[in-house]
């Protein structure tokens, strides 16, 4: 007997939640307990009184599973609202990465040239290295990191995705 897997799609989910102890464990635990995937998860406080946080989760799964994930998240007591950005119309998504690259001579120049093309900023430098700060979609960051790997990538830190719907309304 072999176990079969279903085709899955990438979805960006945006949640607002009460900012209380254990909320992240509740959400992360829901994903593990029910066998859902987390590609990335970001969380930060977004209100003046520190009462509400926004959590952005990139997940993947077949449409039925995504629908279940939404419903299961919505059922958690501290969750205010769950939106599937991927389904709710045009939206902006960004992540930030810090990319450390080491090299000398021509490699150094090439790294700077590529950084310019990607609108990455230099935030730290030594004679033999740079740290670039880049923001963009996951694809853009992936591409930048891929190119730097060929030059002398040392290490990468990424924030994971945050997203908002386009236009003047809030979700």
């Amino acid at each position, binding site marked *: *007997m072999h176990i079969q897997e279903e085709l899955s799609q990438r979805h960006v989910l945006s949640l607002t*939640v*009460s900012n209380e*102890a*254990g909320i992240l*464990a*509740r959400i992360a*635990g*829901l994903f593990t*307990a029910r066998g859902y995937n987390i590609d990335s998860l970001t969380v930060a406080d977004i209100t003046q009184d520190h*009462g509400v946080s926004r959590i952005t989760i990139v997940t993947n799964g077949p449409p*039925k599973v995504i*629908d*279940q994930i939404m*419903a*299961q998240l*919505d*059922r958690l*007591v*501290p*969750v*205010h609202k769950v939106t599937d950005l991927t389904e709710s119309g045009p939206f902006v998504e960004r992540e930030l990465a810090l990319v450390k690259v080491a090299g000398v001579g021509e490699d150094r120049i090439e790294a700077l040239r590529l950084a310019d093309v990607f609108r990455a900023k230099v935030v730290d430098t030594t004679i033999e290295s740079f740290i670039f700060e880049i923001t963009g979609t996951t694809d853009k960051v992936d591409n930048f990191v891929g190119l730097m790997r060929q030059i002398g990538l040392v290490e990468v830190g990424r924030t994971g995705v945050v997203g908002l719907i386009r236009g003047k309304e809030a979700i």
Partner: protein
Amino acid sequence: MAEKSGADILVECLLDLGVEVVFGYPGGAVLPIYDALFNHPTIKHVLVRHEQGATHMAEGYARSTGKPGVVLVTSGPGATNAVTGITDALMDSIPMVVITGQVPTQLIGTDAFQEADTVGITRHCTKHNYLVKDPAKLAGVIHEAFHIATTGRPGPVVIDIPKNVQIATAPYKRPEPVAHASYHPQTKADAAGIDAAVEMLAAAERPVFYTGGGVINSGPEASTLLRELAAMTGAPVTSTLMGLGAYPATGPQWLGMLGMHGTYEANFAMNKADLIICVGARFDDRVTGRLDAFAPNSRKVHIDIDRSSINKIVDVDVAIVADVGSALSDMVALWKARGHEAADLSAWWAQIDGWRAKKSLDYAENATEIMPQRAIADLYKACTATGKDIIITTEVGQHQMWAAQHFGFDAPNKWLTSGGLGTMGYGFPAAIGAQMGNPDSLVICVAGDASIQMNIQEMGTASQYRLPVKIFILNNEYMGMVRQWQELTYQSRYSNSYSDSLPDFVKLAEAYGWTGIRIDGPDDLESGIRAMIDTPGPVIVDCRVAKLSNCFPMIPSGAAHTEMLLDPSQVKGSMTDEAKALV
């Protein structure tokens, strides 16, 4: 404002919330609360013998009264012992509030004596949980916890209270009801769904009501409305294990239970229906059988208070997210307003009568041994004859299924069983809880010889509180349900499914000051049951039944509704790996 200790605030809140009974067990981390409860004039504390017992008692109390069950246990082992019952309540949507003691806040995280991460451990087996670190927040949390446990889809809520928070003081006043920031269960259905459901029902040629525990949870009014809607439409009614009693077993449109051990007519009606109205049930795997063969030619309406139940297993045509009672009342009103009449369903009923003629619950009687089905049927007859209010609880196994099949329930809240989690050890404490909440009812736990031993220590609890519960053991000296699966799947290799070294249940009864009765054969059955019912105090009946009887009909795992086994001759004795891998 006068300040009160955390422990006093807790007790004050319980009073404000109308709590009459707490099932609990003391320990270091709850001593302040126990002191606040000492000789309390109105809140009765039932001292259990094991914390798991407390949780099932609370479940039995809740399920039979409609009020939330309340549990109080200490930190560490007290809390971990409660986990099974908490999970059981989550799976069966039972309103329950569990108060756990915790080590003082400054010791949290230090591996202190009897420290366990109770909120961590119970996070995914509760509807919600809290760790309260500030006595000023306690009252708000307790009121919120009861609100969450009892509204929407009911469930267990844990409140973990460190010992120093029980002792520290804070001003107390009864909290005003506040709108919760994020918790707003939808109880009223959208009109479009009700409209669609009513029109589909009016046009259906082969409709079936498939009802579940949600009808019971919604309150007795929902059962009344279900009966009204069923009568108006003339459609047949079947139910899950959890929903028995919502529609009366003596009602004309009753098909019996559906699913793995459901009747032939219920499962065939589901298979051939053109419209299924699922009312407060959740398309559980015990009910659907093989999914790709489940009700293949039907349209489906699903009424559920929990949005996540909808399209989870089976895709439906119309989703109605609402409290069952509210949705049924809307449907009844709209059916009347539209002037619908019951359609002519005679062809459908003729087909159903054909399936009924199979008499799928029949079994071969035996002159020398008591057939377990016969024992339940006789128990039902004797109970009905008393004219008393009867509450039946069960343990888990064959006896549970036989009780579901052969005992008839005509009212909601009279049948208490562990459906979702299937917890052996549930039934007896649940009976104690039910008896606490219903002192005048005849409460009987139908048990198996193996299951009863899982919480048998609670006999002491029943003795102490003079609770006249009856335990009726269908003693087959096997874990019968396990043995049955081994017969179906593993060529009858009975690996560890026999009951060796059983206690003498009659002597055990005597040891606890109960009455013990042994029923050895068919000739003693009626008189033994009579004696049990007529004995005023608690009774154990050790009813010796045919050891190798199996529970039929049965849809084996991975089979379709139409592939039921009706009797032992159809058992093949082995299965494919795919079927073996299913639960």
